[in-house]
């Protein structure tokens, strides 16, 4: 039995090792009902992400953030996973996953680029000590944005081997998620990030018009996604000089 949690992790290419991914991927290919469940979960996540932002109490945010950081830590020291014994109901599982996704997006966008100037290369670099220390929430940011940029790059790389109808669906999904992240960045008061994500939109639309089959567009997007990932990485390594 594959749980909703596992399906969500599979969809976001996160938190599963290669064997688990292969097992779930094979199961989805062979089981139309499971594929439908995955689609339904993704639709719920997208719908939840499109909901207007509501203020979340600071203590709740902190609790969610701790949970995310714990999950990140557990990824690093993953050992054999014990089988799950308890399960949420589908409703609660989806609601929890959606809430975590929305909060994660909001948190990562809010914390990642704050203040905006830190994310933009400066000449000359001032490197004040306080800024060099960076925010304490950097891991959450990196996790969230990497998740979007890296998964988009992976999906683009996989377009070539996909069937035409799968390609079209994948591009549609990538476009919708990119808009969601751009919107989240705007709402989080991070214009620099929002602008870059918005700039991807016309290329994605052009790609969609051609059924996901335009190597020039894919190459351009892949390059720009890698540049953005490079910026994030450089920011983590040397925050005072490059970002």
């Amino acid at each position, binding site marked *: 039995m594959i749980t909703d949690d596992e399906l969500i992790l599979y969809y976001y290419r996160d938190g599963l090792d290669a064997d688990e991914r292969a097992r779930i991927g094979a199961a989805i290919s062979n089981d139309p009902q499971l594929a439908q469940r995955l689609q339904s979960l993704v639709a719920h996540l997208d719908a939840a992400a499109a909901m207007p932002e509501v203020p979340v109490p600071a203590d709740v945010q902190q609790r969610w953030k701790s949970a995310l950081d714990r999950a990140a830590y557990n990824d690093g020291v993953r050992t054999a996973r014990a089988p799950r014994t308890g399960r949420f109901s589908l409703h609660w599982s989806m609601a929890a996953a959606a809430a975590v996704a929305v909060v994660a997006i909001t948190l990562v966008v809010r914390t990642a680029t704050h203040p905006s100037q830190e994310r*933009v290369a400066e*000449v000359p670099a001032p490197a004040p000590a306080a800024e060099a220390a960076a925010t304490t929430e950097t891991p959450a940011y990196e996790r969230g944005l990497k998740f979007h940029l890296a998964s988009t790059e992976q999906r683009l790389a996989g377009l070539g081997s996909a069937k035409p109808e799968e390609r079209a669906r994948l591009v549609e999904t990538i476009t919708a998620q990119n808009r969601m992240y751009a919107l989240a960045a*705007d709402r989080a008061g991070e214009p620099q990030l929002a*602008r870059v994500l918005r700039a991807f939109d016309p290329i994605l639309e052009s790609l969609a018009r051609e059924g996901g089959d335009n190597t020039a567009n894919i190459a351009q997007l892949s390059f720009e996604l890698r*540049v953005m990932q490079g910026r994030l990485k450089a920011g983590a390594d040397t925050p005072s*000089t490059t970002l």
Partner: protein
Amino acid sequence: MHFIPTTLAALLLAGAASAQTVVSESRVIQVKNSDRAPTEAEELSLAALEGLMAQPADRALPIIKKVLAGSQTTLVKQRALFVLSQINSPEARDILLQTSRSADADLRSEAIRSIGIGGDGKALDSLQAIYSAGNDDVKEEVLQAWLIAGRKEAVYQAALNAKTEDEASNAIRILGAMNAGDELRKLVDRPNALSGLVDALAISGDLASLRKIAEGSGEKSVRVEAVRKIGIIQGDAAHAALREIYSSNKDEEIRDAALQGMLISGDDKGVLALYQAAKTTDEKRELLRTLTMMDSDAALKAIDAALEKK
């Protein structure tokens, strides 16, 4: 990827040397650089450009300048401009501005886009002159840059000062994409509202503004279009508006448009109510046809009732 700057520069220059052949080949087959995937030689240059993101800006900038001034292909230079958009320095902005006036359409286009991504107010303002003097392609590029930067006012001004209907419609379409409700509403108050505006209002779900156009004194074709497009807006308020417009108008075109709007919005109950209230056979026949096209329970009920009477 942690190249040292000299290695990056060497890689980029090496890429330029092998790119000469690519440029001449592309001229022969008349393929624009921006319309193709990078060659192997260009891939190396692009990898080097990506590596620049790991470098401090004051080291990366001279290398990017060298790439832009050198003999790299247009495709590599375009990507260099994107990298430049990520560097927050006056010099980087100057280079982008300068390139936005370039005679090379591909480089100009990418520079304008990069100005949008960079988001510098002064650079975005300077696009105004480029927009005014530019052809349709340039205007579209500038509008896209303002969209990326979220410059609603600049796009609004472009719509307001447009010299042709196409130009206005393009700006209005961008305003719609920006969800610029206030700016679109301000355009409604202009005499002779444009059809592009009707589309943007429908997409943004602005029922009040559409109704204002529909019931105004502007060009009739635009008013008819506004009535029809109310059908795109779902919900009880839009349904009620269309029923009222149908019932309160004597103009056949407007009534037809209202009926089409109800068809688009799937308001079978509304059409049934109008059918039941219709006083002439012609009107009843027209409404019954519409109901039939809607393929609903209400349609069946009306058909059944009409046949029973016979």
